[in-house]
């Protein structure tokens, strides 16, 4: 069981680390993009900072007939959902709050992203935005069940819904080794959760940006920051669920947590760069005909292992 750190200190550290990793993800994506475009990759490292500065001074857009309240709420909800989900992720032996139902809490906070993206799409009173929001919900219906089953499988292996207990259960062997299908499914659904890479249809260029078509200035900055935070959080959660948390030689536990998070996040960013967008109606079939049966089989195997042990 991981401890809870002194009040105020751990939330602060959490926010700083999330910010650093989110920036790293954005910079990584920018570098990959720059290299593909043939421009200087090193200069791209500062691209997120430049873009942030530009958006801060850009005037926010107003659209006739917009539902401004829901629109702003949607934008603000995305980073909030990401940070709340990160509450239960342990950094080595310490978490902001190691809830007894941390796995369920994480999933519940993730799902707030559904609200956020749809509100962004709907609030703008724009057909592109609305279609983008709908795409994310369709995407959600496709990846959420496999995602849930992957989370359930990890909790099943540990016999607890507490994230700290899941980490403790991996002392001898990591869950990524015990349940590789669940780990792979988790990563796929993690990409979809952050509408990243092959699952960026909700903000696709064929929709002039989709749910992100209309937000401008600070609104857009909050949206993009929230997206990268979400990507960071789902990558970070893979570490305690499947990669043994802070376990590892030489380095202290918190350092191993950070290293593993960086590796997973880097992999997700790279995949996002390499894999083209997938149509949601096609992924729906894959999600329901392949990923769900696969995750159920994985859960069955883990159940048998737990009973036998």
């Amino acid at each position, binding site marked *: 069981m991981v401890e809870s750190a002194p009040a105020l200190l751990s939330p602060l550290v959490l926010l700083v680390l999330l910010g650093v990793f989110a920036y790293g993800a954005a910079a990584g994506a920018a570098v990959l993009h720059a290299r593909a475009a043939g421009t200087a990759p090193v200069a791209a490292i500062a691209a997120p900072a430049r873009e942030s500065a530009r958006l801060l001074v850009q005037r926010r857009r107003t659209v006739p007939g917009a539902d401004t309240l829901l629109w702003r709420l949607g934008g603000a909800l995305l980073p909030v959902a990401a940070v709340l989900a990160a509450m239960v992720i342990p950094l080595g032996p310490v978490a902001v709050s190691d809830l007894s139902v941390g796995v369920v809490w994480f*999933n519940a906070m993730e799902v707030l992203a559904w*609200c956020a993206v749809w509100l962004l799409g709907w609030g703008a009173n724009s057909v592109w935005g609305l279609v983008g929001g709908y795409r994310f919900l369709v995407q959600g219906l496709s990846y959420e069940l496999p995602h849930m089953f992957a989370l359930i499988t990890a909790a099943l292996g540990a016999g607890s819904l507490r994230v700290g207990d899941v980490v403790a259960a991996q002392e001898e062997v990591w869950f990524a080794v015990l349940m590789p299908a669940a780990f792979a499914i988790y990563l796929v659904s993690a990409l979809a959760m952050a509408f990243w890479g092959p699952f960026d249809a909700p903000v696709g260029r064929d929709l002039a940006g989709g749910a992100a078509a209309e937000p401008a200035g600070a609104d857009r900055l909050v949206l993009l920051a929230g997206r990268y935070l979400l990507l960071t959080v789902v990558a970070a959660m893979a570490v305690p669920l499947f990669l043994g948390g802070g376990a590892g030689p030489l380095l202290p536990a918190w350092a191993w947590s950070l290293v593993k998070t960086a590796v997973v996040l880097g992999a997700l960013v790279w995949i996002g760069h390499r894999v083209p967008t997938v149509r949601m109606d096609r992924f729906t079939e894959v999600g329901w005909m392949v990923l769900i049966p696969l995750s159920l089989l994985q859960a069955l195997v883990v159940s048998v292992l737990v009973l036998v042990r």
Partner: protein
Amino acid sequence: MAETVVFVVCAVGAVASGVAVFVLDSMARATFALLASFLFAAVPLLLLGLSYLGVLVVLMMVMEMMVMVVFMIMYMMNPAGLMPMSMLHNKVGALAVAIGTFAVLAAGVFLVPWPAREGAVPADPTLLLAEAIMGPHMLVMMLVGLVLFATMVASVVLSTPRGRYDRYGDDLRRARPDDPIDGGLGR
């Protein structure tokens, strides 16, 4: 004391957002007012120490509202239906039924001889819940599960404009289905 304050805030919040569902003239806002009401209702569950059920209510209600909002917008996608729109119909009748129901329920609350509390709080309510669902109540859960599954399948069948004859031909002998968009599995 803190618990009492939290409970009162959530109770008032739940009722207020519940009222807002019917007062607001936007389908989207009504949906999220309803979600707010459910979230307020989830907090008392947490106060009772039912962590799993409380968080589960949040999780399920968020997803449910998002699915519902799709259908609401879909079915009312016309200028008159989106904004402004009214959730109030047959106001007099509805008001009479609502007040009557409230009176009956309130009377029940005050007149029922509630039993005194027995036993101690379990160390792990989630485990007890799991044991109840997988033990004495398993038959009920399985039947309910079957009913829900049948409902989902039926609603999908009724909503799809194309069936197996459209896909595989009148004699169902077409090797590959004639779908407007190929599925992800290349079948």
